[in-house]
């Protein structure tokens, strides 16, 4: 089907070391609001190691979600470069970025964003179908993930029949099932009560670490950020690492 090489597990000759798995270089991004240009991210550079769990704290409107959109290729930077495992993301066109995202990114949203017309099983296996991995191995992986998130017995339920915590657990399984290298979580506990939020974070931490994935978590919650290896604060368009 798609011949473009975007799978990050197959390193290119130009691939950097694990130290520089995800590199953001002189990144700048802003939006036009009415007649005024509002800069959200200011010319900052940073590198993440392979398998690292980083959390980004920041106030509403500080640019956290914009950062995730740039890493996932949903949005394009005004200037600067993004390299993922040596691939220059900023040089890809819309279709190439979509295919990159399909294989390499797992998304977890604040409002779960499950597809209402698909069952739990169909929601989880959708990324497998999109990436052509809907084979026995893929199905086994999906079942095992659903087992781990505790929803093995709810395979045929539709999203509106399960609780918010359960929906978020389904979305975690969906984010990991196709074995992406990077998982992006946008306020995953923002719509859950404290206990459920804690359980979801523990699950996310356990599953991504065990699979050796990079997890980029943006959140308001210092408690959720506490799970991360490194914590950054997004302030005035700059990413500042917090001392721990």
């Amino acid at each position, binding site marked *: 089907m798609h011949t473009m090489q975007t799978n990050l597990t197959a390193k290119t000759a130009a691939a950097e070391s694990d130290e520089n798995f995800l590199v953001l270089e002189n990144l700048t991004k802003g939006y036009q609001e009415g007649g005024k240009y509002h800069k959200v991210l200011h010319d900052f550079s940073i590198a993440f190691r392979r398998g690292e769990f980083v959390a980004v704290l920041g106030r509403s409107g500080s640019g956290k979600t914009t950062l995730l959109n740039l890493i996932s290729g949903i949005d394009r930077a005004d200037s600067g470069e993004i390299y993922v495992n040596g691939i220059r993301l900023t040089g890809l066109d819309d279709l190439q970025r979509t295919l990159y995202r*399909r294989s390499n990114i797992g998304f977890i949203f604040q409002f779960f964003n499950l597809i209402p017309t698909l069952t739990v099983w*169909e929601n989880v296996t959708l990324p497998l179908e999109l990436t*052509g991995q809907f084979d026995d191995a893929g199905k086994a992986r999906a079942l095992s993930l659903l087992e781990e998130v505790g929803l093995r017995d709810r395979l045929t339920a539709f999203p509106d029949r399960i609780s918010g915590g359960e929906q978020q657990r389904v979305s975690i399984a969906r984010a990991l099932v196709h074995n992406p290298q990077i998982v992006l979580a946008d306020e995953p506990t923002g719509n859950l009560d404290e206990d459920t939020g804690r359980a979801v974070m523990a699950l996310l931490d356990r599953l991504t670490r065990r699979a050796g994935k990079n997890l980029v978590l943006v959140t308001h919650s210092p408690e959720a950020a506490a799970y991360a290896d490194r914590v950054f604060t997004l302030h005035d368009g700059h990413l500042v690492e917090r001392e721990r």
Partner: protein
Amino acid sequence: MAADTPFFPPGLRNVGWRYVFRRRWQTLLMVLGIALGVAVMVAIDLANASASRAFDLSTEAVAGRATHQITGGPQGLDENVYIQLRRAGILELAAPVVAAYVSSPQLGGQPLQLLGIDAFTDAPFRPYLGSDRAASYSQLVQFFTRPGSVLLSRGLASRYGLQLGDTFDLEISGRLQPVTLVGLLDPQDSLGQRTLEGVILADISTAQELTGALGRLSWVDLILDQDDPAAAERIQAALPAGARVAAVEARSGTLNQMTAAFRVNLSALSMLALVVGLFLIYNTMTFSVVQRRSLFGMLRCLGVTRREIFLLVGSEALIVGVIGSLIGIGLGVLMGRGTVSAVSQTINDLYFTTTVKAQGIPFSSLLKGGVLGLLATLVTAAPPAWEAASVPPRAALSRSGLESKVRRGVIITAFGGLGMILGGVLLFLLPLDNLLLGFSGTFAVTVGFAMLAALSMVLLVRLITPLSARLFGFLGRMAPRSLVNSLSRTSVAVAALMVAVAVTVGVTLMIDSFRYTVNVWLEQSLSSDVYITAPDFNQAQPSTPVDPAVVEQARAWPGVERLDLVRATTVDSPSGPVKVTAFLNSTIASERLFREQSIPTGEMWPRMLEGAVIVSESLADRLDLSLGNSFALYNSQGRQDYPIIGIFYDYATSEGLVQMALPRYQQDWQDSTITALGLRLPTGTNPDGITAALQDGLQTTQRLVIRSNAGLRADVLEVFDRTFAITSALRVLATTVAFIGVLSALLLLQLEKEKEIGILRALGLTGRQLWRLVMLETGIMGLVAGLLAMPTGYALAIILIYIINKRSFGWTLQLALTPEAFLQALLIAMTAALLAGIYPARKMGRMAAAAAIREE
């Protein structure tokens, strides 16, 4: 990445298809839109195919394999001409025929073709008669020797329970004549069976006796060598003056061509119903896409490509299109039963008598309807699918962003609309008299007006707001503002409704104008008080001879002030057969509405007595005739030119006719037959009394049709109403689709605003205020759609009347503006709009505010 990603992953298919099945009501409306459109198309196509095949079969039954025919004018051909040519060896393959349209009370009263043939020469012409199972030897002996012996097809006889040896009556020129069934024709092939369904076969001498045409032939069929173009000329040279040889195709081709225009007109009108249905689909599809913007955005986040989103929405349209088309085909077949007989009747009224009812449902009609329905759905769904594919990941473009984008596009869309209208008008101005081009122009103008809907809505709402604010307070300000703020939804809905309603306005105005024109025409052209004709299948222009004894009795009838005589017939011309009506009526010119005339009306009759003629506008336009020209006709002396002194409006036939003075006709064609009598009574005499007295007192064996002026006018109007019966049915269908369209568009719009309404409820909006708000919003949309439909419908009517009708029938109609048509438009739009408000208002009124504003 894996190289074997499926073209369209089943998971995505589920996303789309389940949406279709979950939103049952929304889907049902789309299915209904397609089904109705396809049904109308299939029904009309079945009727057209049936009419076309009936024409072919009727021609096949009569002409068989003949390539040419020798004809002899209105009174036929002297049989001695045939005998002499045979003896002289000039004719090789030739068969004499005596034919007449007859009916029989025992055979359902339908038109049947009495065909008198010479069995010894006929076999090469009508091979279906020569089947070895046709008739036994003893039957043939009776056929030749026993007077009044006829053969029928086995199918026809058994359908009416007739057995061999049974006697039944044939009504020929208003007289009942007994005949005996001596044999059954049983062709093995289905073509032969169908062809014979409308034929009564008799020996040629029997047919001459039955029709009273002793010594005359209707024509002589010939099979001429195609490689010898001079063969026809050699025969023509041997023929006496007044007899002509002509190719069969040339004789039947003109009629077929004329009915083709009529059929194209019907097909195109049926497509209008589909277009209305398509606007319904477009509206619903666009709505479903707009509703799911966040879902598509999220799918894009998961790595679903634009192409896949396009396919997803396209596959939804495919399901709906397939289901809708299948239902439409079934519905079309059912409706076809009505349309087939209506179209056949119209063709009988306006063009020619068909004796064969084509049976069966041609697969091609079903396929055509299905494929067109499906294609139309997919094409209509393409823009919304493209819109869905353009949704950025995570729907980064907010709803307010979308609305401001739409508002910015309003002016551009309006300019696009003006461009479309201009393009449509340019198509009309092209010097080509093409019906399809006319319909393409109509489509362009309609879409152009639809594209003006958004701008018109913004402007109209601005106008309405002060009034609604005054009447309804803050709700009166809120409702119009909300409509303009959600222009992405409301403008599409209003455009769809407007088109649907405008089509009904346009067609209504066309039918009203048609009736008005015919009424004026009848007023002018029917001047006698009582009319006498013989029964005829063509009621608009009866050409069956009236018993001469009746003419004499009518002339001497007490109280008759003046007697006008008419001979209606068909004569040959270099352009093929032409209808001619000859009058003995010195005031004929003042009873016609002239489009053009070369001399004053008062001077016309003397000129007509000298040989001048007047022609109808449809004939003049069809054959490119103009004042000052002459029109050539073949009379009993051969070809003669008749100067044209007037072109008049006439709505009796679509092919047109020539009118001349009866004395001149009788002199030129040696024909004293009379086909209609017009009796003028002194002022103040009650025509009904004389009509009744004539019905009782005329001494004749012929059944006559005696009608007062009012009676005849009613009969003629009935024929015209029948002509437009299908158009009226189409109008009802378009109105139904329009009504459903209004209802669905507004219903969906309100349901989508559930959350907004929930917030208002949470903020303290009372249940009563909620009702008012919803009704105000739907009411304003209905009003805007209804108001916009008026100018659009008017434009459509102008196009239908002055361009489409003129090209289809050749008739100029006078535009009659009836306020009812416009009021009806407003009524449909407003009623549907208010009805559409009831359900959402009830539903939302009951819903707890908390439930409505819940995020997930």
